[in-house]
């Protein structure tokens, strides 16, 4: 790996990452800050909205009623939003890992440096890992601080929250891996972002359809969002390895295929 490439990649994304972090931090603190208000009026709210289903209706086995109320709130108000934010981030950063430099013409200069394409792309993937960790860490910090201030009674453990965010991290990397794979195939930024975003939207629709139609539940398994279940990790049960493993394998396989394609493909001006 090349430290110069990693540093350059981080440097060229630092402003965008700052704003991503700022937004996620603000969102996390806002949601946690509103929790006492929701908790106080939970019954009235759910009744007015037609039942607790509206707020996620999460029931984690072994959790107390109060915890389940919080999980429902957390799931409906935070993680479902964050899922889309992180999917957007994954598409933007994964696809942009190559296409952005192709668009500016800097890819030619970068690849003319005395390093192999494998080393170049691995350095870029390392930068992706760093930036994704920074973004997900912003969420972790926000929820941890927010829980300490506004949700002490819920008993959210730092370790459980870490596990939640570990799944978020792997989810983002899986989306980014898909974006990177498309980028190495297409190279042009507009077409790559468009196609990656289109696939993400289709996967989201599949999740909704699977949620609505009980005979089409299997659709959930072909959507990356079907493996997003961070709130379930909060319960006292075991870490759900299977879903995180699927996301992790997706991230690894897509990145590996991208690497193989990128090593051989022509960079046509």
């Amino acid at each position, binding site marked *: 790996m*090349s430290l*110069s490439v990693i540093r350059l990649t981080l440097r060229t994304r630092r402003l965008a990452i700052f704003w991503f972090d700022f937004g996620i931090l603000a969102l996390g603190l806002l949601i946690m800050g509103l929790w006492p208000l929701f908790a106080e009026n939970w019954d009235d709210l759910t009744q007015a909205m037609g039942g607790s289903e509206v707020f996620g209706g999460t029931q984690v086995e072994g959790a107390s009623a109060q915890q389940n109320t919080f999980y429902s709130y957390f799931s409906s108000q935070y993680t479902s939003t964050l899922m889309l934010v992180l999917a957007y981030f994954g598409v933007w950063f994964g696809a942009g890992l190559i296409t952005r430099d192709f668009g*500016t*013409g800097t890819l030619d200069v970068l*690849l*003319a440096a*005395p390093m*192999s394409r494998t080393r170049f792309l691995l350095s870029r993937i390392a930068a992706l890992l760093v930036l994704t960790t920074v973004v997900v860490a912003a969420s972790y910090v926000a929820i941890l601080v927010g829980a300490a201030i506004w949700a002490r009674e819920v008993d959210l453990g730092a370790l459980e929250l870490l596990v939640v965010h570990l799944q978020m991290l792997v989810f983002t990397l899986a989306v980014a891996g898909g974006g990177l794979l498309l980028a190495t195939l297409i190279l042009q930024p507009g077409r790559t972002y468009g196609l990656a975003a289109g696939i993400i939207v289709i996967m989201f629709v599949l999740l909704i359809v699977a949620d609505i139609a009980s005979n089409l539940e299997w659709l959930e398994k072909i959507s990356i969002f079907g493996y997003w279940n961070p709130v379930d990790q909060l319960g006292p049960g075991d870490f759900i390895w299977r879903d995180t493993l699927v996301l992790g394998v997706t991230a690894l396989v897509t990145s590996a295929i991208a690497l193989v394609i990128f090593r051989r493909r022509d960079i046509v001006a």
Partner: protein
Amino acid sequence: MSDIAIQTWGLTKHYGDVEALTDLNLEVRSGEIFGYLGPNGAGKTTTIRLLMGLMRPTRGRAEVLGLDVHRDGPTARNSMSFLPSDSSLYTFMKVGQYLEAFGNLTNAPRKRRDELTERLELDTSRKIGDLSMGNRQKVVVVRALQEDVPVYVVDEPTRGLDPLVQQEFGKIISELRDEGRTVLLSTHVLSEAEALCDRVGILRLGRLVQVDTVADLSVARMRRVTVTFDGEAPADLTIPGVSDISIEDGTARFEVSGSIDPVIKALARYTVVDLETDEPSFEESFLQHYESEGGA
């Protein structure tokens, strides 16, 4: 150091059915500025991208300082610096940050960067996005030339530069040659090749049609000349080596190949009010010449 800096054997690149480059056998000697000439679409950029390992050849191979540019890619590129024809800038960066970031990729010496920015009068504290086209091109030039390598591959380097900066660029390139470095300079500007290069290769429709010294290039070069006489143009105007002569009132128009000296000497007999020379397009001047010689 090897006598040959860049060599290709039957280098060919097809894009589907399109033959961008066909059987290129090229030798660029160490320590020379080699002009790679041809109109747009002739295959110059394709050759350069193949040399830089950005594309794989359909067949054939290329070596730089004895290293295969694909098999030994990173090692070969360790000896090369590349200036692409398209803008290759991060417009949100400051000039100094950009040059340093890319210099770090290749361990370019800071001293050389400072010298070049001073000579080309480039303000390193300014944001690239705020620069004019000419100044952006200066950044691209400094980025490439800051590298301390034996071979420079430059594609249309003076595009957008004002004449004074072009002149300074020419001096820098000549100094590199004097230090024993090799420059492959791709251009479609004949005067630039004439001023800077030791030898030139002329490419047309993906094929190398001629390799000449610059002296030969000058012989082949064609100019359009318009002479305005004081009064009527002489009816018996005869100038050796000119063609397509037309006389109208006090103005004579003709084309001249090679040296313009016989024209000046022939005109010295008359009172000339104005003399204009105009360089035809690459296609018009050179390729017609080589076609007529059966070179194409």
